[in-house]
């Protein structure tokens, strides 16, 4: 197990280097004159030159990459051009907010979709099963911001059940934050529910056909013991696998939901940095998200391995 994790962590390094080269090339090299692309067409040449020198953009390429990458590795991420604050602490604070939202969303998504999927699987081919499958799958194709605005109109504006904003007022207790995160988490759930529930449903249907389920039923185990002890556990492996494969979409969805709800997370920050040509902040956001993305894929793989003894032993 430890070897598996170690090997996967090592494999992340070359990918990360390639991604960093991609970001470096896109952000620092391809736009041509970096200072010009930040300051826009109306700045004087002198201003552009000063900014280029300040950013080190007048040195040779490999040297610039080495310096650039070195600063990232050592935590010297520079200052945001737009906010003037240090990039590192700004990004980390936003990342904390994003992780809170993502974690809360996952806590809602996983049990809900497994329950829905197992329920549909237990009532295979019934009208309800078909209704669940069709409605959850059509939800996955609808962009988060579309379901988001519809949810806001229904639950916040019309019914007044939930707040419109995603952050409680200053000074409110920390627990309140979760209440404010319910509405932003639902569009993320709708995005994933269909895929995860489908896998849980397929897993359930397969397990139900196994001889040991018949044995369990025939030896007189109560229905809930059969479902929780045998069905649920075995329906879990494909489900976790598909959750892992959905992490990319979840991160994309997070960006959109944060922007929709004006939530101070890393996605919203990335969009603002992109709109204001705040290159240092933008690069940091993208790299942090890339690392996050790879780590969550790794965690999903590890969880799958833990659930599946064959992979666990094989190390």
């Amino acid at each position, binding site marked *: 197990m430890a070897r598996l994790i170690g090997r996967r962590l090592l494999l992340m390094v070359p990918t990360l280097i390639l991604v960093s080269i991609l970001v470096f090339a896109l952000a620092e090299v391809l736009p041509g004159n970096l200072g010009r692309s930040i300051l826009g067409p109306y700045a004087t040449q002198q201003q552009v030159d000063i900014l280029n020198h300040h950013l080190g953009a007048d040195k040779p390429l490999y040297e610039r990459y080495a310096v650039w990458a070195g600063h990232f590795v050592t935590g010297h991420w520079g200052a945001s051009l737009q906010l003037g604050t240090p990039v590192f602490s700004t990004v980390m604070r936003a990342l904390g907010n994003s992780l809170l939202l993502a974690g809360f969303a996952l806590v809602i998504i996983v049990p809900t979709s497994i329950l829905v999927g197992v329920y549909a699987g237990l009532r295979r081919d019934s009208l309800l099963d078909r209704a669940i499958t069709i409605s959850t799958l059509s939800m996955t194709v609808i962009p988060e911001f579309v379901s988001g605005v519809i949810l806001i*109109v229904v639950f916040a504006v019309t019914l007044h059940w939930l707040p419109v904003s995603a952050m409680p007022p200053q000074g409110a207790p920390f627990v309140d934050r979760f209440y404010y995160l319910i509405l932003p988490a639902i569009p993320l759930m709708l995005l994933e529910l269909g895929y995860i529930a489908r896998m849980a449903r397929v897993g359930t249907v397969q397990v139900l056909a196994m001889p040991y389920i018949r044995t369990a039923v025939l030896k007189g185990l109560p229905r809930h013991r059969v479902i929780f002890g045998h069905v649920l556990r075995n329906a879990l492996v494909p489900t976790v696998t598909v959750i892992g494969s959905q992490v990319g979409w979840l991160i994309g969805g997070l*960006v959109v939901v944060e922007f929709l709800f004006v939530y101070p997370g890393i996605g919203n920050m990335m969009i603002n940095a992109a*709109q204001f040509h705040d290159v240092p902040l933008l690069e940091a956001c993208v790299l942090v998200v890339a690392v996050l993305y790879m780590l969550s894929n790794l965690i999903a793989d590890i969880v799958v391995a833990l659930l599946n003894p064959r992979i666990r032993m094989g190390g």
Partner: protein
Amino acid sequence: MAPAGVVDDSRTQEMQADVAAALEQRRQRRYLVRALLRSPTFVIGVLIVLFWVFMGIFSTAFTQSPLAQHPFAILQSPSAAHWFGTDDLGRDVLARTMAGARTVLIIAPLATLLALLWGGIIGLIAGFYRGITDDIIMRLVDVLLALPVIITSILILSLFGKSLAIVIVVIGALFTPVVSRTIRSAVIGEREREYVMAARLRGERSAFVMAREILPNITQPIIVEGTVRLGYAVFTAATLSFLGFGLGPPSPDWGLTIATERVDLQSAPWTVLFPAFALASLVVGVNLITDGLSSVFSK
């Protein structure tokens, strides 16, 4: 060549076999079309998408102007004069919702075609040659997939400016890796078949074998992949314009409208809800087409 009048038996048989194969192919194609027309999923999807294509092209001929502002009629709720109400500048929401289909319906199909073209070429080459070519191409593909699509597109669009053409190229480029993977695996399934061997033994050039022998035999996975990507392209194009990386105001584009009008969400929800429902119906329509196609093809 046999002299005239003399019947070369083997040759006649071969020709008869060719004709039979061609007829069989045509019969199958006709069967597929009929099966598609009988699939309600496919037909409803096509009708929804055609509705929006029609609106995107012709709606301005019979609705009010999507851009005309009426300062004395701002944020009016739906009424006989304005079926979908008016927005913060007094523009007719019905006209804007109908015309809003245009940008997405330009971006998504063109981006999909680009992805199919590039991904098709890369997938054919990687799958046909295998070996080191395949390894290198697939590692590069992995790197491109190491970032979520939306993140890479934000990065590129913010640095290269935003225009319709750039959005199309970016979405097309970012969908290329996935398309090339699908096509690569389809090619790998075909390359050991007898007809490919035969073409190689005849001494055909690789490019000919790829384009004229393998390609016609993998049209079904390509079509399915194309419609799947089209759904994602609509999704991505709408999302990018919602995030402010598409056209700017006063375009009636759905994503842009939802982003700019959401400040009035509490007082005038109709300004946002109608474009939202319109976009939802379009993505569902495209995905119904995908479902219909793949279920008919897999039979």
